[in-house]
């Protein structure tokens, strides 16, 4: 993964989460992964197209998803209903969009696809052919993992 792409994603995630949740957040150590990996329970995916292609996954447990949705909506949510899912989608959209804007300022052209959300237990993502950058984010509401995999178009 091109080094120029890393910071925009990390910064955007940091800024947006801090703004919409109003809590302290800390970033864990970044690392690379290429094997298939378990998914925590709720995963939003945003595709990237343009000069490069790839996708960004936002992975969290159901509890964390509910806590984030509650905080963003300003009301206590106990079920992962349509509103809660839409909220998580929106969060994924905001973070990816801001990253892409930052990248565009640097001269890299990306487009994003509408986000989609997956929920379920014991899920696994496998796309062994691309190396993914993992940005772990710790919040009082729980743990969020951002998984970015992009590659230059051949």
């Amino acid at each position, binding site marked *: 993964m*091109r*080094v120029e792409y*890393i910071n925009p994603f990390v910064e955007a995630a940091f800024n947006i989460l801090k703004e919409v949740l109003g809590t302290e957040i800390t970033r864990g150590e970044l690392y*690379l992964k290429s094997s298939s990996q*378990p998914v*925590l329970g709720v995963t939003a995916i945003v595709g990237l197209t343009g000069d490069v292609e790839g996708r960004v996954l936002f992975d969290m*447990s159901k509890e964390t998803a509910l806590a984030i949705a509650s905080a963003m909506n300003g009301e206590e949510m106990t079920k992962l209903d349509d509103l809660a899912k839409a909220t998580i989608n929106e969060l994924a959209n905001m973070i990816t969009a801001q990253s892409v804007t930052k990248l565009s300022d640097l001269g890299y052209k990306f487009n994003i696809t509408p986000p989609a959300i997956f929920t379920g237990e*014991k899920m*696994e993502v496998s796309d062994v052919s691309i190396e993914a950058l993992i940005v772990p984010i710790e919040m009082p509401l*729980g743990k969020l993992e951002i998984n970015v995999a992009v590659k230059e178009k051949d």
Partner: protein
Amino acid sequence: MSNTSEQIIEKKAAIDFKMVTFSIAGKEYAVDIMKVKEISKERNFTYVPNAPMYVLGVHNLRGEIIPVIDLRKMFHLPVNETEGSEEDVLILSVEDLTLGIVVDSIDRVVGISKEQVQEPHPLFGDVNIRYISGVVDTGGTMYVILDVERIFGKEEVLAESHMEKVPEKTLPVKTIISESGIKELTLQFITETLSALQSFHVTDLNIAWVKRRYKEWKNIRETENLKLQLENIQDADDFLKPFYSPYTGVLWGDDYKDSIHKLIGEKEHGIMHVWNSGCGKGYEAYSIVCILKSGFPGSNIKVWASDNDLLNISSAPNLVLNRDQIPAYIKEGDFVEKGQGGFRFKREVKDAIVFEYHNITNRNEYPEADIIIARDILSFLDIDSQTRILQEFKNGLKDDGILILGSNEIPPERDWFRMEEGSLTAYKKA
């Protein structure tokens, strides 16, 4: 509550390795379930005369005669002698050999995540470290995972795998005394410590250097009256200090420029592709771009430079130099400009390089390369990755392309043809 259920989900989802656990002399061990053919309780093995003491005999497993080995005796652990009673036997399938091993008691099957497995420490007692593939702590119990391929596999077996010979070779203590003497033992210990402390893996790639260095090291340590063994990271670093190639962490000098110009030759070069793995802060990548630009001005150069150290690679695109760090060919080629805090490479040089945060053991996708540079990085990968990546290099290099490894790394002769040009050694595909 949210926390615990999250942990459970995580734990369940992560299981990708199952092992059969058993105990010997009150300690817990494990082997990969894929190596276990079956488990059973057996007694009255047929005694084989003249066999080593840890061979209990042979056993008729539904028509197949298999050797049965007492793992406790083999590892010199105490045995509770219970004459004639049923013993717990693990039937293993190692390569094309089937054999039974007797243990105190077979426990259960435990599923773990491969990530939980930790490297064994060289100071482990009881069982020689060569035979341990890792340790894992799960459910509050610590399991030592035995590497049965190593213990019983072909590598250890003499030409004809006669049963008596198998264990003879595998017995750690005997190997050391009969075959090698104390000197080899220290070398072997150093090898193991290097891999544990610095993940430096001694293989055919670098064994020649390790042996030379060991002699040197012995002299130094003996005159200074210090222990030969590497006791901590500092010792391992000292041992490895001369391993690193010239111009590590600085721009390549003019002698390397001349060597590379000669190695590449005079022919037409339109587009030149370079892979540079383990580029660190980017010195190698910048050097090669300037060298190629000064030697082949008309060509279009593209360098893919990667490193898995995030901090180093992040600083690579904006590398700042002092005037005295810059070799003559870079000054003459007018490749740098003065900026804030020092000299920086010009846009045309930077645009020729893509810096990537990338781990070479993951999939490498690059166009066919004219030059591959991977100095002093393969030695820090395990042997399987070394072999695999060298093969990738071979596939990814053009027929007249050159490979530059660390100056103390030698790729297999059957695949690579050695070329020396001045102070630089490079390889072409054989």
